[in-house]
């Protein structure tokens, strides 16, 4: 008879080999494989796809969605959700454009937008934490509030700032678009926060089991409010990239982003109920969406058809993600 120690050792040896191969059983690996397959197919159809320039192009185009997806992922891992981030970014962009047009200096405007984002996020977090109402409903309501305020500020006209603030959205350093660098910086920050900080660990615990977190002496409300505020700050950053990229702001500029960010996070392996998943996975979720759009453009799929295909992919990805769990 083996005693338990021997068994434990034997088991742990087996597992260490297994854990080295565990990347094969990993959601991110699948995402990368899918991206590669899409890449190969598209390159065969049109060799222009596989160029560094095109890749940077994709990254630039999807940097705003990428940054917002990082907000969404951090919130979801903490058990939250914010579907107002799109219109929050739109409102931030609108405020920025109005300030510039009123002749206020760029730096003051930048700081104001970042503060506005933080405050709006804080308000969302405060209501969610204190009311204990599901964040979906709260942020859906706030979504309309932000959109409405942006409409009021716009006064019915798109606000054009033309080339006053091109740096974040259009400029490049050594051919690398700055918006891509910002996205990567946000990704790195989110990854680090999630993995290496006590704050991130506690957020993850709250997302996993609020009640146990509360019973463990974690200040649940403080963590929830602060992560919404932090997310708001990053949304402010996304708003700046948004203005900079388009040079023109409409009130509903940001409307589509929130659900796309949610989709990207889910494709990236974060379940809707939250508490699990990684920001890196969500990043690859964005990358997959970006590359698919780009590939469809290159192949010449019309934008209406693109919308259909994107929707189908979201359903497909979530169904696939769930099949693994249904196995016994």
């Amino acid at each position, binding site marked *: 008879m083996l005693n*338990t120690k021997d068994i*434990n050792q034997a*088991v*742990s040896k*087996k*597992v260490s080999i*297994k*854990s080295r191969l565990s990347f094969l059983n990993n959601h991110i690996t699948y995402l990368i494989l899918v991206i590669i397959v899409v890449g190969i197919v598209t390159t065969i159809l049109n060799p222009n796809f596989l160029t560094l320039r095109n890749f940077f192009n994709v990254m630039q185009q999807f940097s705003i969605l990428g940054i917002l997806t990082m907000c969404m992922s951090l919130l979801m891992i903490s058990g939250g959700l914010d579907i107002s981030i799109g219109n929050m970014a739109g409102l931030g962009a609108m405020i920025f454009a109005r300030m510039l047009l009123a002749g206020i200096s760029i730096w003051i405007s930048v700081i104001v937008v970042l503060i506005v984002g933080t405050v709006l996020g804080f308000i969302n977090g405060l209501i969610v934490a204190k009311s204990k109402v599901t964040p979906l409903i709260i942020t859906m309501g706030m979504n309309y509030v932000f959109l409405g305020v942006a409409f009021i500020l716009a006064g019915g006209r798109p606000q054009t700032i033309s080339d006053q603030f091109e740096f974040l959205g259009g400029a490049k350093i050594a051919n690398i678009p700055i918006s891509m660098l910002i996205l990567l910086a946000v990704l790195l920050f989110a990854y680090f926060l999630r*993995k*290496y*900080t*006590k*704050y991130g*660990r*506690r957020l*993850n*615990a709250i997302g*996993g*089991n609020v*009640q*146990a*977190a*509360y*019973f*463990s*002496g*974690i*200040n649940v409300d403080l963590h929830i409010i602060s992560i919404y505020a932090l997310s708001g700050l990053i949304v402010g950053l996304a708003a700046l990239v948004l203005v900079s990229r388009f040079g023109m702001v409409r009130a509903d500029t940001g409307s589509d982003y929130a659900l796309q960010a949610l989709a990207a996070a889910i494709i990236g392996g974060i379940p809707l109920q939250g*508490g*699990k998943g990684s920001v890196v996975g969500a990043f690859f979720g964005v990358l997959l969406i970006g590359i698919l759009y780009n590939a469809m453009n290159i192949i010449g799929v019309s934008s209406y058809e693109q919308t259909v295909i994107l929707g189908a992919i979201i359903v497909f990805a979530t169904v696939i993600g769930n099949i693994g769990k249904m196995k*016994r």
Partner: protein
Amino acid sequence: MDNMESNLLEKEKILIVKNITKVFPGVKALSDFNFDLYKGEVHCLIGENGAGKSTFIKILSGAFEPSQGEFFINGEEHKYFTPQMARKLGIQTVYQEDILVPCISAAENIFLGSETNNQKYFINYKKIFKDAEKIAKQLGVYIKVDEIYEKLSPSDQQFVKILKALAQKPKILILDEPTQAFNVKDVNLIIEMVKKISQEGVSIIYIAHNLDEIIEVADRITVLRDGAKINTHTKSFETFSADKLAKEMIGRPIDLFYKKKESLVGQDVFEVRGLKLEQSSKEVSFKVKEGEILGVAGLKGAGSAEIARAIFSVKKKYGGKIFYKGKDITPSNPIESVKAGIALITENKKVEGLFMDMPVSHNITIVGLDNIGRFFIRLSKERKISNSYVGKFNIKTSSLNKEVKFLSGGNQQKVVLAKWLFKNIDILIVEEPTHGIDVNAKAEIYEFFCEFTASGKSIIMISSEMMELISLSDRIIVIRNFEISRELIKGEINEENILSGFMGGK
């Protein structure tokens, strides 16, 4: 063995299980398991957590597919079941946490899915209430069948679960720890009910941890250890002894009573003064000494759980102060309680203690994160520390990264203990520390309690298990109707005194 078989030969075997093996990655949960079931018998399965009982019943009910082996039901051979097949063959399983629909009545739950008693599209409430009441009465239980399920007491909910399984007219009924969360009186009701069901020709596979209960209810007992069958006993005075069965389960002799090492108990350090649980309730005051285990005895609903929650401030208190070493530390929320060095381990560890989707190591360090870095977590230090706790508590897990939901109940409880020990708390309030945990893990947890108090720290142990209270406590307070009905010091601690405290005697 042959002799016994021949005695029972006239009885019909309705299930024969041959050489069932189930392998999970890294673990053989069940190996070459043989089992048979006669018509109308109560066959109990006993064994420690992780011995393979749950695996076996999950295979029978179709939740797992066995790696090897076959079944014979009514003479027909099967390699595996799907849940639908199991149901069709007349196998019904009542799991511990099998939750019914909470917001409809007990009777509706009972007949949910069994079309015989429902009309096709509409529900005839009068009829199902009457039918439900009838079958409940036949089995000697009285529940309000028209009551909303979630408003029923835990024991009534358990009855409803069993009645629901019976409404499917099963040939084999599997009961997985049906008496967990029960007090003594209700356990007897379940035992009576099970006996009646078996007399009607239904065969029952019954799993429980309490040996006295098993001896009372069983016709035969099969002992499992480490995934293998150790023995099957037929009812007789000699074989049905708790001591012998426990020995077989563990593989070595044990004492059912834990023998506590004598420890030095110091001065009063912790004091609860004038605690009020309700606006109108009486005040509760008591003191705890350094290095003491204070037992808190009380029947379910007597108020001991509420007292623990009020001290830790996860429940509102209507007055009262808490002192540690003479200083007022009265917390107003659990954040302050933890800061003041108080820990609460509730009975409901899956909801209130553990992060099931997080790895073992993260669960261990979550309260004491400050010990492994200022702002940032030093992952290597975290691994090292959690590894030492896994070793110290003998937590059986294949890796530190394993999610806690994959651990057995006993190991989960050890993770909760490790989590608080890592935080370095002074006062541990623990509710039903060994409920539903196997004998071996129990002894390890008791050992830990003694070590903890030997270092000058104190434990407030709320328990409804007599043996645990008597063998561990340095002093006992008995709670009745939300107040202290009796205090027992060393020498007065015995079952009679505790029981008389329950009844309100002095």
